[in-house]
Each structure stands twice: as structure tokens, then as C-alpha cells.
């Protein structure tokens, strides 16, 4: 399969970090009830790579992702996304950054029920009042196999189709980073494999950067690298993970 890519432009910045956390700390609540969700986390995600964040429930992986994506503000420390320090940005600036430079894929798909698939894919551009580049739109739609589903409402799509539309929505702005939160959690195993393949394709062939939170070792094995989190701290890393190495790594966290 030959796919038009802009790998070269992305590759130029591949040495740089797409997104990086420095001494990131997030505390919920105050006093006795305070919970330290993230505790001085230093972690970086290189551009053009597919990274999985793993860890037991309550390890802080979702909080880390929300902070990295500019959805949530950290208590201290900082996040640098594509060279921009997020800590100094107000709500509007953060929103515009998410719109232009971050893509999201959620567990529950989260397409807007009132819009058809095409309008959902184009949503971030429309909110910015921008027109899609026709070639890029065609590439994304074809890679994700959405061509004959564009006029359908989410309620008329299967779970796998909805998630593919969600991935298209995440890629349409050519973001610096795509964050995927348990993207296969609501899918049957076949559709799940489909989605993971597509995420990997978007990294290998389209040159994107994907950070995925998951608790499924099989899903994590699709990534180039796994970051293990426990009790709000980085507890290890696995390069070129396989299902077995991931399970071993998780078992060590437990023990």
C-alpha cells in the first residue's frame, strides 16, 4: 500500500520531543483528603513514535494524559507540547492549542450525535473557521476506510466505524500529538485490532505521534514503547514491547 505522506516534514522534528512533562505534580483536594495523582513525573514522548502509558487503576495515567493534552492544569511542574510551555496559557489559548495541535481519541468515541461522520471529522477545522485541505482529507478518509460512511450519523455506525471516524477527527488537523484514552475499551477484539493497526499506520506511514493510555497488554504491544506508571510516578519503560514483556512489566509493578 502506498500512501502519500508528509513523513519528511515530520521527520525533521523527530529528534525533538512532541510532548514532555517536567516534574509534573497533580494534587486533588486539600489537607487530609489530598490525593497525589501525579508525583514529580518526568517523561518525554518523541515525535513520530507510538507510546503506550500503562499502569494499574489509580496509577495516574489518565491524569497524566489530561495534563499532557492541556485538558487539565497541573499543580506544579510543566508540560511542553511542540515547543510550547502549557503552564502559562489561559483557557482560550489552551483551547486553541488543543484545536490546532492536539488530537483526541476517546474510549466512548464521543462523536457528536447531531452531526454526520464527515461533519464530525471536520469539526476541529470548522470550529477554527478553516477549510480542510482536500488532499489530506481524502488521505485520512481513505486510510480509515470511511469513504462510504461519511453521510451517516454516529447512531448508524458500528462501534469500530465510530472509532475510525474519531481517529479521522483527531488526524484532520495534523496535530503534534494524538492522545488516545483506552481507544479499544468499548470495541470487540476484531474492531480493536483494526483501530490499533490504524493508530500504528498513522505513526509509521503518516508520521504522526500517538500517546495511548491503556490497561490492555495486547493493545500496548502495538506501541513502539511502553511507559509504566504506578502511584503517580514513572515506574519503568519497555522499548519494542511484546504482550509478554508488558505482562511481565505490569507484574513487577504489582510485586
Amino acid at each position, binding site marked *: 500500500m502506498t500512501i502519500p505522506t508528509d513523513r519528511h516534514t515530520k521527520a525533521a522534528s523527530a529528534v525533538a520531543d512532541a510532548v514532555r512533562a517536567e516534574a509534573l505534580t497533580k494534587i486533588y483536594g486539600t489537607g487530609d483528603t489530598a490525593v497525589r495523582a501525579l508525583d514529580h513525573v518526568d517523561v518525554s514522548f518523541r515525535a513520530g513514535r507510538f507510546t503506550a502509558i500503562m499502569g494499574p487503576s489509580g496509577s495516574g495515567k489518565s491524569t497524566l494524559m*489530561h495534563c499532557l*493534552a492541556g*485538558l*487539565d492544569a497541573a499543580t506544579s511542574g510543566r508540560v511542553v507540547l511542540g515547543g510550547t510551555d502549557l503552564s502559562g496559557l489561559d*483557557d*482560550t489559548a489552551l*483551547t*486553541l492549542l*488543543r*484545536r*490546532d495541535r492536539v488530537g*483526541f481519541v*476517546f474510549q*466512548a468515541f*464521543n462523536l*457528536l*450525535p*447531531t*452531526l454526520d461522520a464527515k461533519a464530525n471529522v471536520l*469539526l*476541529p477545522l*470548522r*470550529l*477554527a*473557521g478553516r477549510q480542510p485541505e482536500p488532499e489530506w482529507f481524502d488521505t485520512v478518509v481513505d486510510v480509515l476506510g470511511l469513504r462510504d460512511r461519511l453521510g451517516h450519523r454516529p447512531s448508524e455506525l458500528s462501534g469500530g466505524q465510530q472509532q475510525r471516524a474519531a481517529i479521522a*477527527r483527531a488526524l484532520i488537523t495534523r496535530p503534534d500529538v494524538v492522545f488516545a484514552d483506552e481507544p479499544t475499551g468499548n470495541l470487540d477484539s476484531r474492531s480493536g485490532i483494526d483501530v490499533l493497526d490504524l493508530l500504528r499506520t498513522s505513526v509509521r506511514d503518516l508520521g504522526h505521534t500517538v500517546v495511548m493510555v491503556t490497561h490492555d497488554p495486547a493493545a500496548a504491544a502495538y506501541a513502539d514503547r511502553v511507559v509504566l506508571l504506578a502511584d503517580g510516578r514513572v515506574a519503568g519503560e519497555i522499548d519494542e514491547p511484546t504482550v509478554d514483556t508488558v505482562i511481565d512489566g505490569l507484574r513487577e509493578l504489582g510485586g
Partner: protein
Amino acid sequence: MFGITMARLRAHPRRLVLTTVVVVLSVGFTAGTLILADSLNQAASLQEMPDAKHLEVPLLMLGAVALIVAAFVIANTFRILVAQRTRELALLRTVGATRRQVRTGVLVESAVVGALGSAAGLALGAVSAAGIGRALSADHGSMPLVVSASTVVASMLVGMLVTVGSAVAPAAAATRVAPLAAVRAVPDGVDSPGARRRQTGVGLTLIAVGVAGLGLGVSVGLGAGIVVVVFAAAVCFLGILLLGPRIVPPMLRITGALAGRAAGRGRSTVELATANSVRHPRRAAATSAALMIGVTMVIGFVTVAESARASVGVVLDARVPADFVLSPVEPGGLSDEAIRAVDDLPETGASVELYTAIVDTGEVGTVEVLGTDLQRWAQIAQLDGDGNIADIAAGDVAIDGGTADEFGLGVGDTVTVFGQELPIGYIVDTRTMYHTGLVLAPATFRALAPEAASGPEYFAVDTADGVSPSRAHAAIEETLQAWPDIMLRNHVEAKERLNRGLDQTVSVVVAILGVAVIIAVIGIANTLSLSVHERRREIGVLRAVGLTKAQTMRLLGVEAVLTALVGALTGVTVGVGFAFAAVLSMERMIFVVPWGYVALTFVVAGALGAVAALGPARRAARMSPVVALATE
């Protein structure tokens, strides 16, 4: 069950507040009108304010309108609330609550809201009535505040009935929720195709019957006609309300598309808002219908009032729309000297004499015949028609357009007047001259009926150019001191009095109906607030993928403004339509569309819609996307 209900109410204060506010306002309004009516009655019987009695019926009617609007808003709010709680109610079922318990729970909840709201409303009504009473009595004697036991009972009863009644259907719907439906929220406002067809059928039938009734009322004409028109309008209105879920969404789409085109770069939020506003057809219809009722009443009333203003001649029953009209106190003719004296005054201008008689003609039955100079008439008032006015001066007869049509007569046909066959030379357009029957030149009239023509019965005269009407009035009055048997009517003053009266009535009615409009706007705020609540997750997604806070506010603002504008549009259309039928049924009245009020209605509706959106929109914008995304 009662304990659980109370706990749930306490757990969701916003639900309680939203419905209670509407109940308080509507019961307050009803109680206020009842108290005011009682108090005015008392004042009238004590002879403090003898005019007060006239106000009772209109007050009660307006109170009823506010109550109907409130019933709409309350019912809609309850339905949305129950739809949103499908999960919670189904959960209660799964842990063992019976259908009956769920139903009772919802009803008890509404009864609590109804009781609290009615009590507070009663207090609000008494306070407002006291305030209005003080304002009224400032220049018209004092008004005692009468809060009768029947007012208290009626207000409480009405408040409870409307609230609990509004909850009956949602409560029944709540019991239909199967325990396992908990997983999926039941979409609100989606009817089965059968129910939809039935609704459309009944709606269209009612509209057809209503329109036929309006036509009947118009043809019945003066007197009973207006009563028929009012009833037919009510039937028609019911039909329109039933068709609401079919009519309102397309209107929202069209309005939204137009707004989107006008919005330029903000287009995407307008498009999203439009899609959201049509999501629940029944909800959208009920929300805008509440506003439509108020607007229909206001615009219908104002249109009739403005038409009355334009048809001042008909309303004042003026034979000639001149500034002053002289007529003898006792039946008979006016003396020539008196007419000359008034006509020669430097303060008076154009004038015309009028002879009248009732004549049995062969061709058009018994009609009134005027003897007047149409050429001079045309100098005083606008006069239109077919034929040549000069022919009348030459001895032909003129006939009004209505009678001519009725008997199929045209210029050149003949009519027998005073036993003499005369050719028709002119057909008067009755919109310019309020006369049914025939017109002769004064000379012809005097020649044919010397016994009837002892003198003209009316002498109409205008103020001279550059003279103030009051000076002309004074001069005429002074001249007429020599003829005490002549009555002078001052139409300038009467017109001013009528205009003042209309202005006053319009402002009072608009102010009172304004309450109905405000209740409707609260309804918009309610719907939007509940909609924000159920769309938390979606709003979270939008915020995550790039909707700014300002865009979020705009999104919800546009939703509310669209709903308000569509409500106003239907209300204006229906109100003007009803007023048209009412005006037609009152013969010869001129129909006028009060464009100023129409424009004002849209501006006010849009502005109120934006205000209604303020609270929910701010709440939506403040929501953290992370929290919103985490909700299920």
C-alpha cells in the same frame, strides 16, 4: 417512598428551583389578578373608583393566559426532568420499586413543588396587587386590599392542579421504563409513527375547522361575528399547538441556516446550535409554543387596537371624518343662518352639508340616502370610487360598493329614489366613505324630497389652515351661542381621547401579557439548563477538540435565541392572522399591521432569549472538560 422523594429533591436543588420559579410566577400572577379584581370590585362598590368594575373580566382573562403558558412550561420541564432521570428511575425499579411507587414518587415530587410554589406565589400575588393598587389609587381614590378565602383556595388549587397535572404524563412515562432500559437513555420527545400521524391528523383537522370558523365569523359580520372569530381562533390555535413538533423544527432549521449565513466566521457554532435545537422536536415545540401563546395574544391585541386607531371614523361613528360636526339637538334640519355663520368664520375651512333620509327603493330595498356634495366631501376626506363625481352633481345617484355588489349593479344601471328612476353615476369605495346606501347631490335631494329636506341634518367643517383646532372649536362654540338647539361634536378631541384610551389599554395589556412572555422565557432557560446538564459530555468533547469558552457561550446563546425567534415568528404570524379575521368581522374597519410592534417583538424575543441563555451558557462554559468527559 416519600422519604426517598424528599431526599432526591434535596439532592437536585436545581430541578426544584427551575420548576418552582415558574409555579411561583404563574400562581403569583393568578392570585394577583384575583386579589386585584376583588379589591377593585370593593372599591367600585364603595364608590371610590367607579370605573374599576370594567377591569375585572379582562384581568381574569389575562390571568388565564398566563396560567396556560405556565402549564406549558411546567409540563415541559417535568417531561425533560423525567426523561433525564430514566436511569435513576430504572435503577429504583431494579432494586425493587414497583411501578406504582415510581409513579407516586414523581407525583409526590410535583405536589411538593406545587405546594411550595403556590404558597410563595400567593404571597407574591398579594404583594404585587398591593403595589398596583397603590399606584392606581394615587390619582383615583383609595383601594382596599381584599384577599378572600376563595382567592387563597383557588390559587393554591390552581397551582397544585397545574403542577401535578403536568406531572401525570411524565409519571406514566416513567413507569414504562423497563429496569434494563437504564443503560440507554430514552430519547425525549420521539413519538411513535402512529401517534405522530394521529397528532398531525387531529392538528390539521382542528386548523381546518378553525379556519372555516374564522371565515364564518367574518361573513356573520358585526355583533356575533367577533364571538365566532374568537372561538374559531382558539380551535385553530389548538391545532397549531398539536402540529408544533412538525412545524417548529423546520422553522428552526431555516432560521438557523439564515443566521449561519449571516454569522460569517461564527458559522460553525450557529450550525451546531441549530442541530441541537431540533434534536428533540417535542421539547423544541413546547418551549417555543409557550412564547408563541404570549406573542399571539400581544400581537393579536395590538393589531386590533391599531386597526381601530386607523379606522377612527368607524369607531367614532362619524358621518364625515371632519374636525367638527354640527347637528340639531331635536330631530329636524339645521338653519341656513347658523351654517353660514359657522362657515364664514375665518377659523373654519372646507365644509360639507349632509341631508339624510330612509327610502324604500325598488331595486336595493330600504336604504339610507345621503344628500351631500361629493366634490366638497372629497376636499375634507379621502374619497375613492368608480365613475365620475360630477355626474352626481348633475343629478345622477351614487351607491356604495357593497350594496352595488350585492345587487349586481354598476354605473349606468338605474335605482328608484323618492319614486324617481335615476341612473347610477358613481360607485363609492366604502373603505373611504362609511356609508351603506345611496348618495344624491343636495340639490337633487331637495328637489325630490322637499318634505324631508327642511335643512341639512349635519354640517361638517374642518379647521382652517394654520389655525389650531382648539381655537376653531372656541370660535364655533361662541358663534353657536345664538343657536342653543345645535349640538357641536369635536372629532379632533374625540380622536385624541380615543388615541389616549387605546395607548393606555395597549400598554396595560402588553404589560400584563408581558408576564406570560417572561414565564415563557423562563421556560426557555429551563429547557436550556436541563439540556446543558444532559449534554455535559458532548460539551466536554467540544471543549476538548477546540470549542473556546466564548464559543460555548455563543453556542447556547444561539440555541435560545433561535427558539425565541421561532416562537415569536409563529406568534406574530398567528396573532396577525387572527386579528385580520377579527377586523374583517367588524364591518368596514381598516386592517393595519403594526409593523413597529412586530419588529419590537422580534428584538425583545431575541434579547430575552439571549438573557435566558446567560445562566446555562455560563455554566456550560465553566465546566471543566475533564469532569464533563468523565460523566456518564
